[in-house]
């Protein structure tokens, strides 16, 4: 099975870096450039704490983007993640208010997200319905269930949650991070391991490259197709827990449109939406680019927040065109 170790691409490796790394490298370059531009333009921008804040403010988005990367690598898409975040914060807040022990709450939330992912994966795999539509239904379902739990926002008063939310970890150099950042980085490490060093990960790339070929090679495509939605569901509910820590509340309108942020991060991070091409690290870089854009705009002060959307749209476009050019050049 060593032959499927590397993701196969219809691209000839040019001189220098193999072109499948090009988008990821480009993402890092864009990150460095945006960050550099911010450092030149604004005093106090180029500090370790600003970098740490990028992680603190986007820990949940990183976890979300990791799950989305798995799904997109198989050529699918998961539109339900933003709603699952809201549902997770709602379940957590409501269960804590009802007096459940925090550990049970965490397990319940993660189980709910994974179960929803499993159900969507089964419908996609067993019935051959497009992922777009199934996860759209999942999005409606999760959002609707939030409203069933409560229309109002529920604040989280549990001591364990509160102390975890306010805890900080001091790094050398006086930079502080929060526990969610550690969790997010662990998720990234585990995901990178699974994707690149396990049979499951190789099959993910194979399914994204060509599902029919993967099946003919005897790979367990069905298991993987359902599996990536379970992973995405798990990651979204974990991201929901991190978001609950970040906001210290459960609310039905949390995370509206966050599925688009996650997809944007994955695409900016160099993954192809047609599947088979991409890296988890790229998605993390994508999140950092989006986060930096937001930070620059908030440092600027005079620019309104809606510029964020326009800039992110522009970045998306730039990366899509870049990938298009790489694939086309390699293909010819």
């Amino acid at each position: 099975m060593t032959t499927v170790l590397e993701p196969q691409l219809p691209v000839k490796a040019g001189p220098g870096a193999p072109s499948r790394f090009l988008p990821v490298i480009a993402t890092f370059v864009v990150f460095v450039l945006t960050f550099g531009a911010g450092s030149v333009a604004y005093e106090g921008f180029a500090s370790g704490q600003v970098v740490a804040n990028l992680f603190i403010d986007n820990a949940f988005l990183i976890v979300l983007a990791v799950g989305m990367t798995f799904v997109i690598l198989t050529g699918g898409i998961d539109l339900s993640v933003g709603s699952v975040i809201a549902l997770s914060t709602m379940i957590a807040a409501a269960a804590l208010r009802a007096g459940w022990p925090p550990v049970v709450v965490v397990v319940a939330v993660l189980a709910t997200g994974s179960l929803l992912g499993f159900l969507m994966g089964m419908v996609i795999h067993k019935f051959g319905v497009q992922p777009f539509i199934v996860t759209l239904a999942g999005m409606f379902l999760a959002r609707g269930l939030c409203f069933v739990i409560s229309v109002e926002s529920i604040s989280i008063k549990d001591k364990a949650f509160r102390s975890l939310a306010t805890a900080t970890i001091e790094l050398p150099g006086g930079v502080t991070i929060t526990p969610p950042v550690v969790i997010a980085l662990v998720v990234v490490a585990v995901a990178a391991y699974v994707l690149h060093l396990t049979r499951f990960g190789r099959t993910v790339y194979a399914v994204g490259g060509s599902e029919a070929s993967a099946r003919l090679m005897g790979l367990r495509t069905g298991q993987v197709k359902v599996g990536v939605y379970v992973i995405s569901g798990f990651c979204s509910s974990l991201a929901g827990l991190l978001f609950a820590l970040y906001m210290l509340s459960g609310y039905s309108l949390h995370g509206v449109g966050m599925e688009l942020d996650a997809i944007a991060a994955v695409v900016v991070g160099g993954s192809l939406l047609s599947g088979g091409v991409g890296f988890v690290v790229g998605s993390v870089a994508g999140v950092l680019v989006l986060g930096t854009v937001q930070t620059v705009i908030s440092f600027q002060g005079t620019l309104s927040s809606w510029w964020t959307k326009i800039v992110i749209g522009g970045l998306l476009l730039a990366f899509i065109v870049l990938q298009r050019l790489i694939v086309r050049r390699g293909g010819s």
Partner: protein
Amino acid sequence: MNRRLLWPLLALAALLLLNLVANPSFFALRLQDGHLFGSLVDVLRNGAPTLLIALGMTLVIATRGIDLSVGAVVAIAGAVTCTHIAGGGGALSGMLLALALCAVLGLWNGFLVSVLGIQPIIATLVLMTAGRGIAMLVTEGQIITVDDPAFREIGAGFLFLPVSILISLAALAATALVTRRTALGMLIESVGVNPEASRLAGVRSRTIIWTVYVFAALCAGVAGLMISSNVSAADANNAGLWIEMDAILAVVIGGTSLAGGRYSLTGTLLGALVIQTLTTTIYTIGVPPEVTLVFKAIVVIAVCLLQAPALSRVFARREAVAA
């Protein structure tokens, strides 16, 4: 009877029956000052923008594409018109300006899809993300309220029936006429089956793809005018939020496959009616309106499963056995 239209038709009938049992006044119609009122008229009126957008979406999906940006286009159309009117411009010139801009946005989507060859879902995601930002830019982040009787007509006016219904139905009829009485519909379907093969066979795939995206953007633009005219205001943040999802649902419920190559305008009409009737029903039978989403999810899953290839194979086998 077209097999594909059976399920949406049954769903609609079931919903109407439920209403008949739960709330007989649902079917009451009354005439007042030459205007028709009643729950059924409300269903049509509230569903008019969705129907219009779903109409454009049907043709896009028939070419194996998808347009996620229509919600943003709705917001932009409303923003441009209301800002123009609020700035002292006329209603007509404002609407024309907005529609011209929508056509440009459609050209942009079409360019990304047909010339650069980017997947439709991601090509239109760009405008979906940036579009609301653009709309906010136009309105400078404010909700622009206008008071213009001419502009009010398009969303809230009456010509026996609400004007918005008439516009949507006219658009539906015109589209049906143009695509089904000429070869255009067939060409669209052939592009959906295989763009490359159609091009080799002499079909101008690129022009056709361009046309459907411009058409979808124009439909979204008109829907945006209706929505903002109905409330006499442009809300860049919330106008047309999630309407692309409703429109795609309407198309899918109507039996058009997301894989392209075949479409049904009648199906889309039925799909839009099912969605709007469902929403209205939930309001009238006293379920909290927030729970609408759960019902929508159930309907989507049910309809998709009924249309799923795996299940139709089972049905086909049974029929073969029975015969």
